[in-house]
Structure formats: C-alpha cells, structure tokens
C-alpha cells in the first residue's frame, strides 16, 4: 500500500479524529456509551455504513447533479442504515433493543455527511473506502474509551463481565452511579479532548 493511502487510513484515528478534532458525529454517539458492548456494535455499524456509503457516492460522484446531492447522499445512507438495522435485529436482538433509535440516528450522524462532502465527492472509490474505514475506526476508538471508562467506574464491569474483585467491595469500594448517567459522557469526552490537546499542541485554540 502506498504511503498516501496509508495516511488516508491512519490519519483519522488520532491526528484528524472525526470526534475530538473535527467535532463531527457526537450526536448519536454518546448515548450508547454507558456500556462497552452497545458502543462497540455502534462503532462497527457506523464504520460499515461510512465505508460503503463513501464507495457508493464516490462511484456516483460524476453523475450526481450538484443541486440535489444532499438528498442523494441521504437516500444512500438511509438505505445502508436500514440494511444494518435489519441485520442487527436478526442476529443481535438484545443489542438492537439497547441501541433503539440511535441506529436510525446514524443517518444524521454528521461524520457521514461530512466525509461524503469532503472526501468521497472528489476521490476514487478505493481511497474513499479507506477513508471511511479510517474515520469509522477513529470514531469507534473514542466510543470505546468513553464506554470503558463509564462501564468500569460505573458498574465495575467490562463487556458485561465483572472485573472489580469482590474483596474491593467488601473493603468499602462503591460503584460510581453518576458515571452511568448521560451528562458524564460529555465530561469524559471533555477530558479526552483535554489529554489529546495537551499531547498534540497544534490543535489548541
């Protein structure tokens, strides 16, 4: 793989991370991060939809009239999201129930529109595919960090398995119930941005 293609794939994971740097796709993301499992499924779903919609729009990029491109993009994304939703409903019913409306909200996830507009409309299908995978992985990484922090501190478990030993609880350790509540997701993301920007000083405002 050439260096430029590798860059397309790797850049969005940290340096151009869609969530903490470009401020995209926060909408439907944070509500699913109280536990690791739904966050992982959500991340994979977004990566799949993003990669394939990037490819489709990239193939169509010379035929779509400029004026109606937004609605074409929305239709492509919505069709892919319906497929993902039906697959989840068939093979992972309990996770589908946990994610509920947030699967549908992948349609209005700003990462999708942002990448289609900024990348797929001007690049070849294979590059767009790599860009989709890279951005999806960047998004999944943030979701997983938030979810691991919240599930570990909030319920003392990871992926549903208890990891904090019983003796800790006997010694007086308590799970922090606040971590499960929605506002803490925002604060955890705020802290991730803090750490990320202390390391990468170019991003500071």
């Amino acid at each position, binding site marked *: 793989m050439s260096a430029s293609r590798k860059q397309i794939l790797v850049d969005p994971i940290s340096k151009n991370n869609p969530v903490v740097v470009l401020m995209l796709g*926060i*909408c439907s993301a944070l*509500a699913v991060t109280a536990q690791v499992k739904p966050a992982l499924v959500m991340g994979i779903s977004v990566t799949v939809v993003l990669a394939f919609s990037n490819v489709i729009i990239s193939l169509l990029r010379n035929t779509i009239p400029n004026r109606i491109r*937004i609605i074409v993009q929305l239709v492509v994304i*919505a069709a892919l999201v319906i497929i993902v939703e039906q697959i989840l409903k068939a093979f992972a019913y309990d996770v589908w129930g946990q994610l509920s*409306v947030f699967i549908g*909200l992948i349609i209005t996830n700003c990462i999708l529109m942002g990448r289609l507009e900024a990348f797929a409309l001007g690049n070849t299908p294979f590059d767009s595919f790599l860009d989709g995978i890279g951005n999806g992985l960047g998004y999944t990484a943030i979701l997983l960090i938030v979810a691991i922090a919240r599930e570990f501190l909030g319920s003392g478990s990871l992926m549903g398995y208890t990891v904090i030993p019983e003796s800790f609880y006997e010694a007086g350790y308590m799970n922090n119930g606040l971590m499960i509540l*929605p506002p803490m997701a*925002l604060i955890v993301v705020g802290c991730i941005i803090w750490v990320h920007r202390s390391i990468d000083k170019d991003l500071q405002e």
Partner: protein
Amino acid sequence: METVNIFIRSIFVDNMVFAYFLGMCSYLAVSKTVKTSIGLGIAVTFVLVITLPINYLLDTYVLGPGALSWLSPELASMDLSFLSFILFIAIIASIVQIVEMVVEKFTPALYSQLGIFLPLIAVNCAILGGSLFMQQKSFDNIGQATTYGLGSGIGWLLAIVGIAAIREHMSYSKVPKPLRGLGITFIITGLMGIAFMGFMGIKF
C-alpha cells in the same frame, strides 16, 4: 392533562441535548453567540413542530403494523415500519426545503437572519430523533405528537441559548490552554446536564 405532562417532560426531563445528546453538532458549532443560537433554536423548533405531525400521520396510517387496513382489510397484516428511516428523512428534507422557500418568499427579514442554518437543519439529529422517539413513544393522537415536537424544540432552544450565554462570558475567564474551545464546552454541557437532572420526576 396528559398533553401538559408531555410538554413539560419533553422540555426539562427528556431534554434533547442533555438526556439524549441530539443535535450536538450544531449545538457545539453555532453556540458562540447568543443571537445566532436564538435564531437556530427557533428554526429547529419550527421544523420539529411541522415535521412531527406529518410523520405521526405517516406512521399511523402508512408505516405501522396493520396501519394500511383503512385501505383494504387484506393489508391489515402489512408492517412497513422498516421503511420508516428513509421516509422520515425524505419528509424532513423536503419540509425543510419548503419551509426555506416559504420563509424566503414571505418574510425575507427572518430568512436573512436564519440564513445558512435553515438548510442545515435537515441533517440535525434532533429533528430525526424527534420523529423516531415519537414513533417509539406511540402517542394517542396528533395533538400529543405536535406538543412533543414543540416541547423538544423549546428544550433544545433553552439548551443552546444557555450554553451560548455561558460561552460569551467565558471569553473573560482563564481556561487551561488544551481545554479552550471544544473541551470546556463539553464539560460545561455535562454540568448543565447534571443541573437539568434536578427536574427528573416532575409530573402534573
């Protein structure tokens, strides 16, 4: 009474921003000044109030399980609800387009104030989220669905105006460098969310 309850709950308890993180992208990007955030908040409320009743009718008479039975009894076993994403987003995108044209034609002053925000609303998660939650909550009648739209819109307006006011004042305070801008906005939104949790359990 049920309607009042839905209204109050959708503003304070099930707040779009603080409880479900919907519409966060424009919430973070536009909340730099109070004036523009009021404009965007009003536009979002407006579109929610128009799209929710339409999507409610669509859900009740076309998409839901057995909803087509008014057409002919044989269709009673049809369930088209898997199509709801694509139809809802199509309705929203076209309503936003129509609203934009109507506003431009009849109230040019408001149009120039809202400017670029109107077309962007089509991809605001709060609008599609409103429709999907409406579908999930299965309201009794169209009045309740409209009230839910109005309440959610006002809740979103409150949130964005609140954060914009805080951000305007924050330009005078000393924030650690890496936290400036995006980071501190997230943390303040979290704190506002904790404050809003005080409304939990409100009932009439």
